[in-house]
């Protein structure tokens, strides 16, 4: 057994510590996820879905934005399988980039774990994991902890919304949804410590603003990500060549 293998030896304490750290780290994000889950449940009932249909969508699809879009379409009388599924695909295309971003770390893990972790690859889980990578490196148990915590909370919030529909005044008016961008912001700021990262930030900010104004759905994330990160890569390569 070589050193690398010894380092990879299961240290149960560390695994469980990483898992629970992930759950703790996801708490502020959950504060923001819960109002969305509740609203999704309330809207689902309002447009005539049953509790089980609403919950099953959260359990099988687990993609907030796509679920909201689907509920809106069903509510507007658009019930075509093709239209809804294709729209879901477009809304979720951004996950291809997040998957590519995490692939170098995940690809060494067992297949079944990759299967579970990719199933739960939401924006929130991605952000938690890249933050952990930046601070102290990738940990698969951290990844699993973040994924499971978000999954359980999303399903539970959905259930609460769909069950107590009549008792809940519009949860997105509470202001708690701000917890999501707030948490992301706290994770972004330590990344802006060099020139290239600041350029990536400014380009992504401008493109995403323009994208929200002029593009449908979630294309603003895809476009901002591709343009900003390509520019970042180019600047870095030119800088290295010049040295």
């Amino acid at each position, binding site marked *: 057994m070589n050193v690398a293998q010894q380092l990879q030896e299961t240290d149960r304490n560390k695994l469980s510590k990483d898992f629970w750290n992930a759950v703790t780290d996801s708490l502020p994000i959950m504060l923001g996820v819960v109002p969305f889950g509740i609203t999704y449940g309330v809207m689902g009932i309002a447009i005539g879905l049953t509790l089980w249909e609403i919950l099953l969508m959260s359990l099988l699809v687990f993609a907030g934005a796509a679920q909201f879009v689907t509920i809106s379409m069903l509510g507007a009388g658009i019930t075509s399988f093709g239209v809804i599924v294709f729209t879901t695909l477009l809304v979720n295309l951004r996950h291809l980039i997040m998957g590519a971003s995490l692939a170098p770390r995940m690809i060494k893990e067992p297949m079944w774990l990759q299967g579970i972790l990719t199933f739960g690859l939401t924006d929130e889980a991605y952000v938690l994991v890249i933050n952990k990578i930046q601070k102290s490196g990738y940990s698969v148990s951290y990844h699993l902890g973040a994924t499971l915590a978000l999954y359980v909370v999303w399903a539970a919030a959905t259930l609460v919304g769909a069950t107590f529909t009549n008792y809940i005044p519009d949860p997105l008016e509470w202001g708690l949804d701000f917890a999501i961008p707030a948490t992301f912001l706290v994770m972004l700021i330590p990344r802006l410590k060099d020139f290239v990262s600041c350029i*990536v930030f400014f380009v992504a900010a401008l493109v995403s603003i323009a994208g929200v104004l002029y593009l449908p759905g979630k294309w603003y994330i895809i476009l901002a990500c591709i343009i900003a990160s390509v520019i970042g890569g180019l600047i870095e390569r030119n800088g290295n060549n010049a040295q």
Partner: protein
Amino acid sequence: MRSEILLIIIGMAVVTYSTRVGSLVLFRFTGIPSWLEVWLKHVPTAILTALIIPALILPKGAIDLSLNNHYLLAGLTTGLTAFLSRNVLASIGLGLLVMLSLRWFGF
């Protein structure tokens, strides 16, 4: 449960999963190309920015740089606190405090 709704849910689940697992499946066959790694390096910062900035500057879909934009004011509070203190809980907590005060008490 109605079968047409069930079918839609299954269809959504299949395409969503394919977007999430797609890159890993592809890389399993091709390996991760080295030119891609330079690009992937900046993806986290770019995605974080694209998730945050529109939520703060266009919370309702139109640019709003006024004092009525609670998300922007609370976001500036969180951002500044994070920059100065590097304290996660203080940054999120102060931002939320600003957000909830504006929302519920209207200061």
